[in-house]
């Protein structure tokens, strides 16, 4: 019972954090802080997926969470290197 309450409150709160990170992405002062805010947004989405797999009792969401964290890492690497050095490789 209290587990359900905690889960729904946490999911709502994490959705609020995703919205806050979207605001940060849109209103960032510089490109690196925009990349950082996007990375943080995807990591919070990973946390939401982990919470969701816990609540539903389905472990397949964790695969999606792993792939999403890999995608966040690769995209952050590519975007930051392109911003800093003008090329990715």
């Amino acid at each position, binding site marked *: 019972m209290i587990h359900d309450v905690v889960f729904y409150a946490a999911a709502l709160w994490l959705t609020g954090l995703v919205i806050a990170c979207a605001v940060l992405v849109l209103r960032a002062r510089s490109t690196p802080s925009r990349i950082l805010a996007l*990375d943080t947004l995807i990591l919070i989405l990973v946390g939401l997926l982990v919470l969701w797999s816990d609540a539903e009792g389905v472990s397949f969401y964790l695969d999606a969470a792993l792939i999403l*964290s890999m995608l966040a890492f690769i995209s952050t690497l590519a975007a930051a290197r392109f911003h*800093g050095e003008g090329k990715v490789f």
Partner: protein
Amino acid sequence: MDGALAVAADVLVVLGLVVSTLGVVGIFRMPDTYNEIHAASKAVVLGIVAFLLASVLAGGGVTAGRAVLIAAFLFLTAPVSAHVIARATWQRDGRRRRE
């Protein structure tokens, strides 16, 4: 025993929420990109690791392997991405100083 595990999972979920929220608030409050990296890159990853720990405690041993995999991946990649963002900021600033 089962009730104690569920309570521990709830406490870990609340802890992860608090830590991730502190990371996002840090991005809002800090004045500089370096300070934003300092606030966000550690806190959000630690919050997600708390969620993973709660998932392992609540779901039995089924999800433990994948949860450990995600946690290890995050612990490996979060410092690298923070360093790459800081390096990009530094390189842009240096180019602006030289011009």
